[in-house]
C-alpha cells in the first residue's frame, strides 16, 4: 500500500523482501499485520453493507389473503397455507373454540418445516429437535436462534384472513 508508506529513499521491494535472514521475521510480521488490518477493513465494510441494507430496505406490504373458514378445522387441528407468496408455507392452528394462530412453517434454524404436536402443545422441528411455543412462536428448546414469524390474522365475518407477518 504505497499511500501508507512514509516517503523514503528506499524502493518498495527493499521494504518487502528481506535481504538478511534476521530481517525476515520483521517482514513476515509486518505483512501479517497488514493482512489482519485488511481483514479488519473487510469486517467494517460488511457492517457498512448491513447498515446500507437496513437503511434502504423497503417496508414490506402484505396482501390480505383468506386462509380458511371459521370452524373449518377442529380444535387442536391444523391447516397449511402459503403466505405472502406461494413459496412461504405457513401453518394455521386452532388452539381454542375461537382462537386461531398462524406461523411460518420454516424453522428459523435451518428452514425445515415445523409441525404442530397436539400432544405436547408446541410446534416441533423434526430436523434438530427445535421446539416453539404455540402461543407466541418463541423458542422453547433447541438450536433455533429466533422465534417463528407469526402471521397476523383477522376475521372477515366467517373467513380468516392473513394480513401481515410479524417478526420478533
Amino acid at each position, binding site marked *: 500500500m504505497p499511500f501508507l508508506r512514509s516517503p523514503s529513499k528506499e524502493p518498495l521491494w527493499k521494504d518487502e523482501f528481506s535481504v538478511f535472514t534476521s530481517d525476515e521475521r520483521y517482514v513476515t510480521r*509486518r505483512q501479517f*499485520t*497488514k493482512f489482519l488490518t485488511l481483514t*479488519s477493513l473487510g*469486517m*467494517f465494510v460488511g457492517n457498512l453493507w*448491513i447498515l446500507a441494507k437496513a437503511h434502504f430496505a423497503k417496508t414490506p406490504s402484505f396482501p390480505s389473503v383468506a386462509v380458511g373458514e371459521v370452524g373449518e378445522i377442529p380444535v387442536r387441528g391444523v391447516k397449511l397455507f402459503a403466505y405472502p407468496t406461494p413459496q412461504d408455507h405457513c401453518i394455521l392452528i386452532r388452539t381454542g373454540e375461537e382462537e386461531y394462530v398462524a406461523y411460518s412453517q420454516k424453522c428459523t434454524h435451518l428452514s425445515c418445516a415445523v409441525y404442530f404436536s397436539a400432544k405436547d402443545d408446541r410446534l416441533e422441528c423434526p430436523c434438530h429437535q427445535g421446539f416453539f411455543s404455540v402461543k407466541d412462536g418463541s423458542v422453547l428448546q433447541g438450536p433455533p*436462534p429466533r422465534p417463528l414469524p407469526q402471521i397476523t390474522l383477522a376475521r372477515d365475518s366467517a373467513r380468516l384472513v392473513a394480513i401481515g407477518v410479524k417478526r420478533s
Partner: protein
Amino acid sequence: MANLQRSKQRRGLVVIDAAMTLVIFLLVVQIWLLSATLETFLAGHTVPVLPAAIFSGLLFLGCLALDLFVTRVDRESRKP
C-alpha cells in the same frame, strides 16, 4: 555495537508481537460484532445496526493505527 543492534532488534520484535496480538484481539471482537449484527438484522431489528457500524469503524481505525505503528517500529528497529 553489534550487541546493541541485536538488542534493539529483539526489543522491536517484542513490541511488534505485542501490537500484533492487540490487532488479533480487535479483529476477533470485530468478527463477533459482524456476526451479531447480521443475526440481529436478519431477526428484523435495525436499531443496533448503526452503533455496530460505528464501533466496527473504530475497531478498524485501531487496527490501522497499530499497523502504522508496526511499520514504524519495523523501520526504526532495522535501521543500521
